[in-house]
């Protein structure tokens, strides 16, 4: 039996966000000269592509092939926070975004009766997401001499505020579709 529309849309949205992340990091990985950041960014790019595949496979196993969606979560970041214009800003927005992803997937795992296929997919992704947060945080620490510790902290704060704004906007726009996730949070509190 195919998935309910809401769940079908949410899982397809996750897939699209992973694809967009992969394409973004792939372009950056191609642009950078050899360095530790080039190394880790390339692995990050490959992980995001793999995650998009995990969601594609998961959706197909659940009898509901991915919906083609035109927008993804990341697109709204640029509107809210402005374009990241240097490597430090890109890593700062990535750190904020990765934390949001972990939070969102954890929220999904808390849905009562979460499907085994979905749980398995999120569990596989979460193992990578923890590494993503770690390498980006370490890279930002390594940039303190070049960009300034205060500038990095201010940039992180700016993107955190944008993230809160975008997440609230996304919840408001897709309230009906995300209802099953929101209700699970209310039930657990």
């Amino acid at each position, binding site marked *: 039996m195919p998935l309910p529309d809401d769940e079908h849309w949410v899982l397809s949205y996750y897939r699209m966000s992973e694809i967009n992340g992969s*394409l*973004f990091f792939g*372009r*950056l990985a191609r*642009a*950078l*000269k050899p360095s530790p950041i080039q190394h880790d960014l390339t692995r990050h790019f490959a992980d995001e592509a793999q995650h998009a595949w995990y969601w594609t496979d998961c959706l197909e196993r659940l009898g509901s092939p991915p919906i083609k969606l035109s927008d993804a979560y990341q697109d709204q970041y*640029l509107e809210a926070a*402005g*374009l*990241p*214009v*240097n*490597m430090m*800003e*890109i890593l700062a927005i990535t750190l904020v975004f990765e934390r949001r992803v972990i939070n969102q997937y954890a929220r999904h795992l808390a849905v009562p009766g979460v499907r085994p296929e979905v749980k398995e997919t999120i569990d596989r992704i979460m193992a990578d997401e923890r590494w993503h947060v770690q390498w980006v945080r370490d890279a930002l620490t390594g940039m303190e001499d*070049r*960009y300034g510790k205060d500038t990095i902290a201010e940039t992180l704060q700016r993107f955190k505020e944008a993230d809160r704004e975008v997440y609230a906007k996304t919840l408001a726009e897709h309230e009906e579709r995300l209802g099953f996730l929101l209700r699970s949070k209310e039930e657990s509190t």
Partner: protein
Amino acid sequence: MSAPAAEEVMARIAEVLGIPDSRVRPEVPLADLVGESYPLVEMAIELQDDYDVIFTQADLSAVSTVGDLVELVRSRA
């Protein structure tokens, strides 16, 4: 690091964007060459990596033409 020649930076911009050198002239608005946000980010990162410089949002906000961008690179290098 001494400032790179303007011609060199313009040639690099053309290479990064994958367009003919002849389209990258100082008076050309960047918006005519880069229609989307992501290629602009990619180009900014590549130029900073190539010339070991840092751009800020304020820097790029003040840039509207190829010539502005070339001068920004040259002034920081």
